[in-house]
């Protein structure tokens, strides 16, 4: 029933286009930096609906697989079908495998032992929304504050994007708050938005002074889109253009029309640059799927960041459809089979363009799903497994504390196997932002008000990953 409504988080509406005007307009007078060094992009891949991530990263030694199989029953994947992972020496020393449809990510995790095939991907296990660390008893006895609206889609999706599980009156996303701090400082006075969404409007990139620039896989949303036919959008666009091109006597009207026309011109400039990059520009072929088209557009947008005058950039991409109550095995297989080659092509494109070290991609989702089957699917749960991918990632590690999947394990808060997270979203975000260039305790407190409950940012030493919140970055990555 709610499966369909889960897909309604973002929309590329006229509102997005209007919001874009503010961003694009400002770019007209932007004083673009010329320094080509030190550019970084954070890419958030949001999996809407709550991915069953205990069928993504699976324990593969005999005893722990037996626990997995006993708890998951008809949702368990056959051990012989799993793709084994080979952890680096820095991993947790346990045996893992990933879903059989994820061959492309297995290669990025394992590498091939050569400089041409480095390890680019690590997993973070049992991560989820928390206000402060807590044990199962503290959860059950309500001795520590719980995140609001646990186990519900919109609340948990919002909290992954805001890192404010206690809520706030004027809600902003952690990427938006970061942009409030970094945009002027890092983007050299450029007023082009550093927050680009390929999934409609989101809370992730909304800051006090920041809105996202919404694009589609075809590029910027422009008022000239679909011109030349009788499509209602084309007619609307023509009407708006026509209104702006009228001669106005009133000073305010005149200024508004001029400003808007400049914005439209700038959007068309962005679109022109975007279109000039042909699909094969990165020397890699993308599969034919919606998420692949969006990741290709992401790659183009990153390749254009210098022309847009951006040293720092966040990009939001999403894929819905993970809310598998009625049936898990086959639909998740299909989604992973679609997602994996798109991600692999994206990473290969970054490598080919020499951008791998300056782009960090991470996955996020509302929550993981119950370990126990509800018949043929699984329900909403809490802590789960996510990945980080990029040249700055010390690949080949399973980080965090992978929980016991045995029935009624110490982290199971009940109702079908819902696992209490042992790593907070704050920890992930803090490490991402260390790499991204956020500095200073006050700035971290502004972006992540709960961070000090988990980690003292003063402990971070770039040369020693063991001092970092999670430890997925290579030494001296920031």
């Amino acid at each position, binding site marked *: *029933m*709610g499966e*369909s*409504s*889960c897909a309604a988080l973002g929309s590329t509406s006229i509102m997005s286009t209007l919001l874009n005007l503010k961003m694009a307009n400002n770019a007209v007078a932007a004083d673009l930096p010329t320094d080509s060094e030190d550019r970084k992009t954070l890419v958030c891949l949001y999996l809407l609906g709550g991915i069953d991530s205990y069928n993504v990263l699976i324990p593969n030694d005999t005893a722990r697989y037996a626990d997995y199989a006993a708890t998951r029953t008809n949702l368990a994947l056959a051990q012989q079908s799993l793709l084994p992972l080979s952890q680096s020496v820095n991993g947790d020393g346990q045996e893992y495998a990933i879903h059989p449809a994820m061959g492309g990510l297995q290669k990025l995790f394992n590498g091939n032992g050569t400089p041409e095939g480095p390890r680019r991907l690590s997993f973070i296990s049992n991560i989820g929304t928390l206000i402060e660390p807590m044990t199962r008893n503290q959860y*059950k*006895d*309500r001795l520590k*504050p*719980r*995140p*609001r*609206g*646990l*186990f*519900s*889609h*919109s*609340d948990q999706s919002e909290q992954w994007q805001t890192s404010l599980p206690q*809520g706030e009156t004027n809600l902003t996303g952690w990427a938006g708050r970061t942009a409030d701090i970094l945009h002027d400082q890092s983007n050299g006075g450029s007023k082009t938005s550093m927050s680009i969404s390929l999934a409609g409007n989101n809370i992730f990139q909304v800051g006090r002074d920041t809105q996202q620039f919404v694009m589609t896989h075809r590029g910027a949303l422009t008022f000239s889109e679909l011109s030349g036919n009788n499509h209602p959008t084309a007619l609307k666009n023509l009407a708006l253009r026509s209104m702006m091109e009228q001669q106005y006597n009133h000073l305010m009207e005149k200024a508004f029309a001029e400003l808007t026309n400049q914005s439209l011109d700038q959007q068309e400039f962005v679109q022109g640059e975007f279109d000039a990059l042909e699909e094969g520009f990165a020397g890699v072929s993308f599969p034919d799927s919606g998420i692949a088209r969006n990741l290709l557009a992401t790659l183009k947008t990153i390749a254009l960041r210098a022309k847009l005058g951006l040293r720092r950039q966040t990009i939001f991409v999403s894929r819905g459809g993970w809310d598998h*109550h*009625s*049936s898990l095995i086959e639909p998740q297989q299909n989604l992973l089979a679609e997602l994996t080659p798109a991600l692999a092509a994206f990473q290969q494109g970054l490598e080919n363009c020499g951008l791998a070290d300056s782009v960090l991609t991470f996955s996020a989702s509302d929550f993981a799903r119950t370990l126990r089957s*509800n*018949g*043929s*699917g699984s*329900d*909403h749960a809490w802590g789960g497994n996510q990945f980080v991918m990029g040249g700055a990632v010390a690949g080949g590690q399973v980080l965090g504390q992978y929980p016991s999947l045995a029935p009624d394990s110490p982290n199971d808060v009940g*109702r*079908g196997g819902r696992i209490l997270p042992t790593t907070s979203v704050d920890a992930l975000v803090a490490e991402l932002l260390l790499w991204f260039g956020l500095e200073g305790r006050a700035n971290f407190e502004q972006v992540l008000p709960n961070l000090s409950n988990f980690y003292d940012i003063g402990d971070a030493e770039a040369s020693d990953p063991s001092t970092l919140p999670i430890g997925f970055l290579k030494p001296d990555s920031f």
Partner: protein
Amino acid sequence: MKARIFGACVALTILVSLINRRSPEPETKDGAPQNEANLVFSKEPPDPVLSDTMLAGYAGKDTSAAEDLEMMARFIDSVFLLVKKRDTADYSTNEDLVLFLHGSNSHRRPFLAQDGPALNSKGQLVDRWNSPLILHPVSQKLLELRSAGGDKIPYTKDDLLWPDQS
């Protein structure tokens, strides 16, 4: 059905005034009871609970399965209207919702009768075929409801949904 809704509105109004007359209950900092097991319920004769009126006739001969589901949804919405502090309350599963409706809420007040056609012997909310209702927490404000329908097998074509997805 209209008479039933009118009756429910009257009952709701009375209940709101009763709740507003009561002195505030002590609460934890997140507005939820400290521990479900430690709840202390009033020893006075119980006030009429909301379900007495709003679920009257539930799963009876005068209602259809769709009307049952609507009745249950209206009842839950009304409780949510009364209990506004629900930030960290847990009602994401059938069993947790029943605890919530029986008094594990910031008002420490029961809204659901201890027995009746809406509950099975395991204390779960059920449809007219005695199958547990399936909850889908979309947000704190919206719980979608599913009845497994006459075949008693969830996620099949004869399922009934609230809000209706058709």
